[in-house]
């Protein structure tokens, strides 16, 4: 059995690589373009934030304490996020049954799923890179110390993944199935909200150059996080002989990974992963009671809201590019940036809502559209509900983008924000209907290029028109552009609903 182990590892790794490669090579040009755009955005964010943290670490009286607080915060986020990912990888992955019935040693199965957790966690890990880079640059580390810091970073993320997995394995044995699902939904949502709240907080501090307050507050935090292994990671860069810290991190990580492996091998049962069917007494009573009929659009709206709230990774994927773009704007613009920037940032938010949220709302419906088509006379209520959802999703983010640039918020902020949110929400959903990703028979394909071209055109025309109204100080141009955006959005949504209704499915 022992001799077989590396071979099964290798097979499972090859399987995952093959699936990733197949996914990559079947991406359309539009999706590739979008991926490159997002990578560029992430790169810009990284450069900006590294610069910010370089200055913050330079300004800090005690960079070690400051680093401890920052690294510790990411470590805590990492554990909770890893638990959320592990909940999917270990408990609800669709291949649980397939692999569970194959003669794969449980330890190899653990390694396979553990690396899956790490691969997913890497996204959050990358967000922390600017913190580490800023720290290292501020301390002018030599190459050897950089290598140690990188090793520390990798070990800390492995450690948080192992601890997250351990928590999940404990929770699925101890907590009732429905209870644990709710528990992980809530914690994952809190992580998403918490992480972005912290990043926004940094942005706000940096923008108003109130560094001393920030540094003081972070140093208070560092006192609370002194127990975390990230303290060793921060010390790697500054202490004279850091081998004790390296050893501490290696041992803590190895023990945690081994602990998680043992918990899986000895304690994990397939039936722990089963989702309970049938409801409790309360649910049965609810089902038996007569219920008011919902109109179709409201039923679809409620369904979309429930899906989004119950899938934190979906929410994360929707919100993160928007928040990143806001942060990049915030860091790159000066206080004197005027109205055109105000509209540009709002339109960028709308653009990403259309691209990420609205397109996805349509493409996820591939399998249910035939059913909806049979049961509804027209798809207009469905498109209306999805447009409404996308617009409501966009509104707070668009308003947030506007508020950052408005010293004295006036009607332009509220009316403009509403117009932009509704415009992009309806236009995005309409484009999803006009150029759907799914094909007859239920298969899906990548987002089609004409949809991208239309969206880019909409974005450039809207931004240019609104910016022009600011430059020329002609509010009527803004009113004209905004009403045009909403009208074009509504028209596209109507066209999209007709196109879907006429499509052979």
């Amino acid at each position, binding site marked *: 059995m022992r001799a077989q182990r590396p071979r099964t590892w290798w097979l499972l790794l090859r399987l995952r690589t093959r*699936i990733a490669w197949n996914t990559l090579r079947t991406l359309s040009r539009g999706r590739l373009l979008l991926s490159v755009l997002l990578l560029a955005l992430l790169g810009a964010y990284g450069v900006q934030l590294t610069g910010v943290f370089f200055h913050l670490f330079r300004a800090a009286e005690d960079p070690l304490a400051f680093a401890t607080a920052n690294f510790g915060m990411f470590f805590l986020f990492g554990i909770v996020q890893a638990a959320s990912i592990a909940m999917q990888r270990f408990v609800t992955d669709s291949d649980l049954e397939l692999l569970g019935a194959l003669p794969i040693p449980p330890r190899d199965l653990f390694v396979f799923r553990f690396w899956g957790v790490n691969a997913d966690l890497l996204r959050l890990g990358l967000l922390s890179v600017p913190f580490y880079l800023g720290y290292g640059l501020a301390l002018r580390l030599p190459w050897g110390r950089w290598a140690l810091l990188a090793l520390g970073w990798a070990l800390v993320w492995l450690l948080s993944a192992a601890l997250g997995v351990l928590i999940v394995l404990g929770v699925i044995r101890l907590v009732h199935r429905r209870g644990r699902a709710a528990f992980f939904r809530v914690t994952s949502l809190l992580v998403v909200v918490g992480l972005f709240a912290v990043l926004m907080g940094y942005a706000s501090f940096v923008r108003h150059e109130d560094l001393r307050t920030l540094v003081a507050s972070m140093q208070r935090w560092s006192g609370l996080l002194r127990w975390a292994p990230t303290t060793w990671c921060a010390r790697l860069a500054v202490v004279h002989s850091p081998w004790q810290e390296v050893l501490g991190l290696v041992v803590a990580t190895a023990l945690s990974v081994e602990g998680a492996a043992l918990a899986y091998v000895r304690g994990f049962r*397939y*039936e722990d992963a089963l989702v309970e069917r049938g409801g409790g007494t309360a649910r049965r009573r609810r089902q038996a009671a007569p219920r008011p009929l919902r109109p179709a659009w409201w039923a679809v709206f409620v369904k979309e809201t429930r899906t989004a709230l119950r899938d934190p990774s979906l929410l994360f994927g929707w919100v993160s590019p928007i928040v990143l773009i806001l942060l990049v704007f915030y860091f790159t613009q000066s206080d004197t940036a005027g109205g055109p920037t105000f509209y540009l940032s709002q339109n960028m938010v709308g653009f990403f809502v259309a691209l990420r949220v609205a397109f996805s709302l349509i493409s996820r419906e591939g399998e249910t559209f035939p059913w909806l088509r049979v049961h509804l006379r027209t798809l207009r209520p469905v498109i209306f509900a999805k447009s409404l959802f996308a617009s409501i999703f966009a509104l707070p983010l668009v308003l947030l983008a506007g508020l950052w640039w408005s010293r004295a918020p006036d009607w332009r902020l509220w009316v403009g924000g509403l117009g932009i949110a509704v415009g992009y929400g309806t236009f995005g959903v309409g484009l999803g209907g006009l150029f759907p990703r799914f094909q007859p028979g239920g298969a899906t394909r990548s987002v089609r290029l004409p949809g991208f071209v239309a969206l880019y055109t909409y974005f450039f025309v809207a931004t240019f028109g609104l910016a022009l109204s600011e430059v020329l100080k002609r509010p009527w141009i803004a009113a004209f552009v905004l009403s045009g955006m909403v009208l074009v959005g509504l028209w596209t949504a109507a066209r999209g609903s007709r196109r879907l209704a006429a499509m052979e499915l």
Partner: protein
Amino acid sequence: MIQLVELVKYYGRTPALRGVNLKVEAGELFVLLGPNGAGKTTLIKILTTLLRPTAGEAYVAGLSVLRSPQAVKERIGYLPDVPELYGKLTGCELLEFLADLHRVGDRHRILELLERMELQEAAHRFVETYSLGMRKKLALAGALLHRPEVLLLDEPTGSLDPRSARVVKDLLRELCQAGTTVFMTTHILEVAAQLADRVGILDRGRLLACGAVAELLAEHRCASLEDAFLALTGTGEGPEGVSP
């Protein structure tokens, strides 16, 4: 080849199997019938070692599913009711992965099974483009790759077109003649009547009857297997929430 001894399974406080005793001989084709929620899938999952019985014992190929789960997995081929396969692999790539796991070095075996399942034309398409019936045939090919001693099949002919169902039925007969033990569940009584050496009727976790079709009909004085099934189980559905 398969032996169940006072097998009991509870999900929380809900009973799924209540003291099932059964013996299936080598080379036999045994069909388990039962209404929804009777415990058929639970029983098959215990035999695959995916689930652990609450009490009692189950043996496959002479090995205890509790004490030697790895050895049991090496000897069985399993087809779930709804096979969850990797959509971003082609049919051929999926079978290659399974062949590697089972240490099947003979690549001709993959081609042979693809051809037998009439999937050779779709072999290089992604599994996500397959219909449910095609996925089922691909999963069955995967279950047969390593020539298992025992085949555990959950609804193997469900969602197959008549031609594909015939292919599967012929294949199962051949396998039994070659000495493979087949243990399957189905809702399609005609399939059971055509194929089974013996059938068992499971309801609410209890094995109500077991024997050759002719014996069952004679014992319960029924003209057809459907009549016998309804006489034994009634027309009502089984308890909810039992089957995973």
